[in-house]
């Protein structure tokens, strides 16, 4: 917390941005401590006529015991000790931020990959056809000798446009990557020489 205070002192001196930063950090930290990321979970088995019950409370580790968590207590005074003896209390932590970040990250990567795949298989051949007409398409397909939709469309694109060096490099790398994938696909899916 010390450095948050330090940031605060900075903001007093009039630095608007750092004050904003400090507020952000502070809110993040308060969220962290107040959030529902910790729990104490007590599982109490059936006891006489009392049904089994699960209690969850948002308490810190030192309060994680039956007496603090089980509320309301289903048994009266003299049985409390016996009842609590059979309960099992576990302190658990999680990070909902990590979970949220991971899932959203995962879904966006998956989405990007799918979009890229759709682009490569559907849109690019169409684009290519519109740009260069039919004859070149056939020619480039012959080059590969394969009717894969991943055929070197970029090849055609890069040949007709003169671009800057960096772009060319990217183009070339991508083209080479596609060729590799095509080779891999042939050896894994068509010829079954590896990985079968």
């Amino acid at each position: 917390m010390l450095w948050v205070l330090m940031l605060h002192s900075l903001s007093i001196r009039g630095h608007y941005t750092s004050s904003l930063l400090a507020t952000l950090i502070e809110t993040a930290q308060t969220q962290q401590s107040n959030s529902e990321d910790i729990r104490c979970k007590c599982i109490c088995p059936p006891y006489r006529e009392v049904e089994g019950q699960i209690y969850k409370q948002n308490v810190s580790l030192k309060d994680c015991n039956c007496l603090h968590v089980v509320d309301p207590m289903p048994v009266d005074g003299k049985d409390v000790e016996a009842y609590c003896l059979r309960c099992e209390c576990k302190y658990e932590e999680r990070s909902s931020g990590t979970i949220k970040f991971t899932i959203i990250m995962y879904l966006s990567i998956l989405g990007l990959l799918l979009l890229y795949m759709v682009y490569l298989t559907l849109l690019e051949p169409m684009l290519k056809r519109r740009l260069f007409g039919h004859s070149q398409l056939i020619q480039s397909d012959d080059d590969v000798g394969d009717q894969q939709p991943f055929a070197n469309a970029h090849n055609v694109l890069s040949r007709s446009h003169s671009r800057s060096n960096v772009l060319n490099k990217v183009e070339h790398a991508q083209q080479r990557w596609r060729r590799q994938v095509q080779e891999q696909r042939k050896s894994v899916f068509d010829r079954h020489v590896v990985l079968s």
Partner: protein
Amino acid sequence: MSNFWTSLRGKHAADRERGSEGMENPGYCSGSFDGLHHPSDDDDDEMVDIAGATLDFSSTDDVPPLSSGVYEEHNGTSRTAGMNGSGPSRLVDPLEDPLPGVGTYEDFNTIDWVREKSKDRDRHREITNKSRQSTVALLHSISDAFSGWLLMLLVGLMSGALAGGIDISAHWMTDVKGGLCLRGFWFNHEHCCWLSNETTFQERDRCPQWQSWAELITGKSEGPFAYIVNYLMYIFWALMFSFLAVILVRAFAPYACGSGIPEIKTILSGFIIRGYLGKWTLIIKTITLVLAVSSGLSLGKEGPLVHVACCCANILCHLFTKYRKNEAKRREVLSAAAAVGVSVAFGAPIGGVLFSLEEVSYYFPLKTLWRSFFAALVAAFTLRSINPFGNSRLVLFYVEFHTPWHLVELAPFILLGIFGGLWGALFIKANIAWCRLRKTTCLGHYPVIEVLVVAALTALLSYPNSYTRMSGSELISELFNDCSLLDSSQLCGYKQPANTSDTGVDNSLADRPAGPGLYTALWQLALALVFKMMITVITFGMKVPSGLFIPSMAVGAIAGRLLGVGMEQLAYYNHDAVIFKGWCSQGADCITPGLYAMVGAAACLGGVTRMTVSLVVIMFELTGGLEYIVPLMAATMTSKWVADAFGREGIYEAHIRLNGYPFLEPKEEFEHSSLAVDVMRPRRMDPTLAVLTQEGMTVGEVESLVESTHFSGFPVVVSSESQRLVGFVLRRDLLISIDNARKRQDGIVSASQVVFTEHTPPLPPDAPPPLRLRCIMDLSPFTVTDHTPMDITVDIFRKLGLRQCLVTHNGRLLGIITKKDILKHMAQMANRDPDSILFN
């Protein structure tokens, strides 16, 4: 075989055409090997990228370049260094640097461990020598020594983080098949009800925030209609996930399919599969592994995690010159990465190290052991700090019980071992037969449809049974659980004794008769067992990332639990029988079904993979109970014996053999009495060995010799009459050097002489300048005499990691034995088809 070669040839032809387009791009090709195109050389392009960082020459490094004895020494200070020695031809040779590409390997070839190791030793020696000269060099040598550990740290961090991400995502996606969390779609079922107090003792995971699909769509949560909606949604998601997985694998990284352990084993033994450990494979394997696991298919994430960790290691190797340029050094790192993979998969760091040692690694020096240990530690720590399951454990099925076992129980444990062995042998036979079918018949032409059909079948059959509906690791966790008072699952549906004492602290969980809940659970489990056994056979080897550990453990755990409950009831009803008398009396808690499940899981996994030590350690790390080591050992050993009686090889070796990878099994004995002369090439009927002479051949002659054959290396002799051996030249190096000389060196034409000697012989005055190639020649090739027994030769190959060995007779060169020849010979001796060995 010939088929394979022709198709390879065709591919190169296509490559050449495309390659010439690449040459129009001078900005890219300058200084890169990409521009060189040999008539018969393979895949130059492909080698530059992913795994082939060895070929990334565009950057000039200030570190000493690949200074092995094979190449010219640079500074002249350590001219005598290097086991191969080097010629003092420095001043005459116009080629300043070792050529890019010399000393690298083609795709689907085997590396020469001896050459790589000596290369690294020379490099190390040079750095040490230099470090005495200046502070900068000293710092460089320190950083060089430290880089291995730094790399391990990075590998551990990266794999741990990835494994955590995979765990979280897979858990969430598995739950998405059932419903969605309204508090935030990113929460899985358990985290959705994290603080909800609506959960009850019986239904622990029910809370209003979590809505099943039926509730979301129709608004009803009960009744047949809701069941059908849920059922359909389950099948829909299963199909959706598996379709996405297979289509992504097919589109972006076909190498990402399968378990990966057979290939990694082969790669660690020295094989090269370019792109197998590349970045696209890593991305796609990580993404699709989550999809495949959560689609409910009968597969696990453990094997693929090993692959993922190896990809991380290989990619991170690019950061360090030491590992980037040396295939043998890189394999040491990969060995450690395999340990990391298991460490994060099971939360068992020591088990991971032993797994790498016992199961996957080929060359495992002590240094690698310590590095694996460190990397596994870092990875486990990273995973623990991510805390993917929210229970501060590294796996979903961590178990904790410490009830003792009795000596009599060894009998059922051994029974479980026998079951595990039988299942393992059966599984390997059936799975290999199925994979062979896939490889050879038209079944293999429809990978997407195959995955979809299997996924649909799995979803359709597994939904009605609650034990197959849940994911594999949840099932195992449930089966490992012992029924304490706190448990309310169906498996713990024992009849409560009627007269619960009033003290409240009675030990009522011991010694109970089975109730109706348990009987239901038992027949459901029996059905689940049959189903899992069947479906795993056809699932493993499909074109999605698929591991084997979880399904085989699940099979074993089900069988073990069934036996455990059986034993428990037997003991309950026969307290006075001879075998139970004395240790399992009335009211004692003597038999733990969860322990039987654990032993069964270990036995089945042991039967399938034939692991022993590492398996026991993994199980022991999972449970944290030292007292169960003996039962686990007994079951694992029995299972290995039983399974070995039916077939010597585990599932991974069987897959290696099915694919014909050049893997010289270190466990297999060579028992035949053949001699080197029986195995070597050329055979008696064949034309004589293609050799180069150390002087007197012209560039044109060498080129035509190389082109007329397909050998990957040529011995160099003094003269064709004497056939006395000088050295060995690899085809690839030869072609690259000649091509380069023709382009860059003045006066090299087809009539120029190729000279392998130290000093240029006197030439006629009008002759073109000679081409000196001593620097690419291996001056210390391994030789054996023609009467060397093959078992010794095989041992030499295995222990030194040789790729070829020359055979001499009275000092004259007679022939050559390659690794492939040995494998073919072994296949022939074992009555298998020698042509099944496809690769060099």
